[in-house]
């Protein structure tokens, strides 16, 4: 380990709370999103225990409604959306392009504080009456009828939106202006492409939800008629505005995870990624087309048949770039040199779960089937496969992959593999039964249910207890490894990206001298510096040995 690095360059609480180092800010985010993950996870645990019996086991219906609402708000707005961009993206994006920091380091710190302020509003709502509107805040339930603490929650999500906007802005400017010499657009790591696509959605989508929730708040506080029909408003208008952001928000959650997977797979298959430009291009295609599918959440609101036809067709189109990614990842394994290290287990687990999550999206995009499946547990299972099976697996996999870079230490490999497998099995046992529950007709957001649905609910709860264990294990051994882990060295896997060219943990300025990029991404064959057995490489490859 280097004698001086970003973690020990300065000491004291002020050196953290006033830091402008993107790596330290990433760790501030890591601590805060982990906090919200455990809050959201605690709510989920109570939900699953409650659903053990048809009448509901644990809490009153009112409390149950608050549990699933607060689970959704905490997980989506305060964990999933910031997780990969604000933690891994913040840490890695500048290093991956050979920059010293983000373009606007102070704004980066500001966005963390904005996140905290938004988070405090939401925690205030949770602890003073709770929130029972569903994370979707549908009007007029949220703006008129709910008796819970809607106003602070809506303000919290509104404020938090600015944090996303500033992060997106920072990333876009950084990628455009701060790439190292030789780092052309098509030499960018695919993780950077994914962050770039995500940032586009942050900037274009987030203002819409911020304003929409503000309007709902104004209607609630001052009875201004935007959505309440009794005041001349239209409740469906809210849904259009809400999903205009919140559907692209799904891609905010999954695109960065796809970026992580696109880094892990070439490293552990030790070969260039198959179809680089198709994976990069599909990220942009998803970000763009993703803006034109929102009303597929509204096929049964009474929207016009022509609108429904259009949105169904566009929803099928947005599935294609995701399919392209999966095919390219699988093909990358062909004739690779594949190892079973933990990040690779997460990557393969991601492909399997994302595959199911993505394919079940085809069922819901289908107009005829959505009549039956809309708002059932099928939808719950589908989006948990995308958001937990996809986004969270990608995030945890990425944490493992870059942990040696972030902390300079290795985690215990055996325990980590056990945890990865536990997560995969626990996840499937939790959510697969919910597909069947959904087709049988069990509605979502039910505090009690007809007895014929009990067996599948008990299976799901059993799976959730395994899943919880799978999340606790990494918490324990990753924390342990910060102190007791083996020293990792700059490039333990080894991998080709610029982040692996600098020390672990990196220096405050990331690099001693600005690197110059002369190689293509994931090009193991032309990287004699990695110390690998390069076959058939140009003769200079062995020259330096």
């Amino acid at each position, binding site marked *: 380990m280097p004698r001086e690095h970003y973690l020990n360059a300065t000491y004291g609480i002020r050196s953290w709370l006033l830091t402008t180092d993107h790596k330290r800010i990433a760790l501030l985010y890591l601590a805060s999103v982990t906090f919200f993950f455990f809050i959201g996870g605690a709510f989920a645990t109570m939900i699953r225990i409650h659903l053990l019996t048809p009448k509901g086991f644990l809490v009153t*219906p*009112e409390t149950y*409604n608050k549990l699933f609402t607060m689970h959704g708000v905490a997980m989506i707005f305060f964990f999933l959306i910031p997780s990969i961009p604000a933690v891994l993206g913040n840490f890695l994006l500048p290093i991956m392009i050979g920059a010293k920091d983000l373009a606007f380091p102070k704004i980066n710190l500001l966005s963390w504080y904005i996140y905290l302020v938004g988070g405090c509003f939401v925690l205030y709502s949770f602890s003073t009456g709770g929130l*029972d509107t569903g994370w979707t805040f*549908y009007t*007029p*339930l949220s703006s008129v*009828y709910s008796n819970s603490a809607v106003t602070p929650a809506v303000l919290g999500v509104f404020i938090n939106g600015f944090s996303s906007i500033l992060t997106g802005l920072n990333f876009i400017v950084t990628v455009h202006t701060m790439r190292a010499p030789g780092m052309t657009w098509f030499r960018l790591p695919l993780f950077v492409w994914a962050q770039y696509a995500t940032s586009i959605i942050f900037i274009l989508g987030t203002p819409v939800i911020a304003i929409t929730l503000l309007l709902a708040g104004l209607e609630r506080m001052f009875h201004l008629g935007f959505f309440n*029909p*009794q005041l001349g408003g239209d*409740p*469906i208008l809210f849904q259009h505005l809400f999903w205009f952001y919140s559907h692209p928000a799904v891609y905010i959650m999954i695109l960065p995870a796809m970026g992580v997977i696109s880094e892990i797979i070439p490293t552990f298959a*030790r*070969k*260039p990624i*198959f*179809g680089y430009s198709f994976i990069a291009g599909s990220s942009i295609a998803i970000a763009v087309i993703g803006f034109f599918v929102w009303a597929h959440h509204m096929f049964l*609101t*009474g929207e016009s*048949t022509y609108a*429904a036809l259009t949105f*169904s*067709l566009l929803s*099928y189109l947005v599935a*294609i770039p995701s399919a392209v990614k999966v*095919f*390219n990842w699988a093909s990358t*394994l*062909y004739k*690779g*040199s*594949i190892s*079973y290290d933990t990040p690779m287990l997460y990557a393969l687990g991601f*492909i399997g779960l994302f*595959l199911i999550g993505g394919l*079940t999206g*085809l*069922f819901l*995009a*289908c*107009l*005829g*089937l*959505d*009549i*039956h499946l*809309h*708002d059932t547990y099928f939808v719950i299972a589908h989006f948990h496969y995308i958001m937990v099976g996809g986004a969270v697996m990608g995030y945890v996999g990425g944490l493992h992959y870059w942990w040696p870079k972030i902390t300079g230490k290795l985690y215990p490999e055996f325990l980590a593999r056990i945890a990865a497998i536990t997560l995969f099995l626990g996840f499937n046992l939790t959510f697969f039964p919910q597909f*069947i529950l959904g087709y*049988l*007709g069990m*509605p*979502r*957001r039910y*505090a*009690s249910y*007809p007895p014929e649905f009990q067996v599948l609910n008990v299976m799901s709860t059993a799976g959730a207890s395994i899943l919880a264990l799978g999340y606790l294990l990494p918490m324990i051994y990753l924390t342990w490894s910060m102190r007791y882990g083996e020293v990792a060295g700059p490039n333990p896997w080894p991998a080709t990206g610029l982040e692996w060219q600098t020390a672990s943990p990196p220096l405050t300025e990331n690099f001693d001298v600005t690197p110059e990029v002369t190689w293509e991404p994931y090009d193991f*064959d032309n990287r004699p510096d990695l110390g*690998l*057995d390069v076959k058939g490489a140009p003769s200079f490859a062995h020259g330096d040995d």
Partner: protein
Amino acid sequence: MPLYPEQASNFAANVDALMVYITLICVFFAVAITAAIIFFFFKYRRKDPAEVGVPIHGDMRLETAWIAVPLFLALTMFGWGAVVYVDYRRAPLDTLDIYVIGKQWMWKVQQPTGLREINELHVPVGRDVKLILASEDVIHDFSVPAFRVKMDVVPGHYNTMWFRPTKAGRYHFFCQQYCGTNHAIMGGWVTVMEPTDYSAWLSGSSDASANPVVAGEKLFVEKACTTCHLPNGAGRAPSLNGLYGAKVLLADGSTVTADDAYIRESILNPQAKIVAGYQPLMPSFQGQLTEEQIIDLTSYIKSLQSQPAPAKGAGTAPATGKK
């Protein structure tokens, strides 16, 4: 354990067939990709710590194939789904119309005779049934899994849904759009009966005082609608005789069919559509009528169907709208 609910409507078999079709395609791809990954995983596992893979950068033909084939299959899913959906959204002409009103947290059902039910819905087997859905408060959703149908119940306007029950029995219906505290118990049972049983049930339990036409007529007088809507068309507003189901010519030159939604809108928001030849004089009744009262008024206006319809030179359409 069953994998699908009972099939009890005209849509059920169609929706299930669509489900099987998409499932087969998805299972094929999921299995093929997973098998390939597992195969590569073992076949190409690293044998030497310094070994690297073969540098393959991509293949244009493969990329084209795995864009084109999924796109084609996706379009077939879209097409079949669209056919089912369009059928579902377009109710046939001669339906048995039943009003369903959702309010936190109960369902009120009104049969054509005016018979009212709470959290129960009786329908005859083999008959096309159209539900006209209204909400008194928040958004609800009326869903019958055994029929494979559902539709949101949105305050401020009517939605409709239709189905033809194919099998007598008792089936769950649910509120499927989260609507607050007791959302989970806002449900009930659909009872599908043989047509003769249904008629007997309807006449056996009918209560003359609940007749919506009578109630509607009373409201029509109470709310002073009679002041302007004179039956001979000589008033400041058009006659309502023969209105229901007719085409109405509007002041902007367009026409609209006078259905439940049009009548409801004209009562609550009279300025939205002005009948040709009349002034926009009618006041709004927003907030002064419950959804049930609006249904009573609509039932009364429907009953004026067969009476003679004198027109006041307002276009060619049979004597039209109001206002």
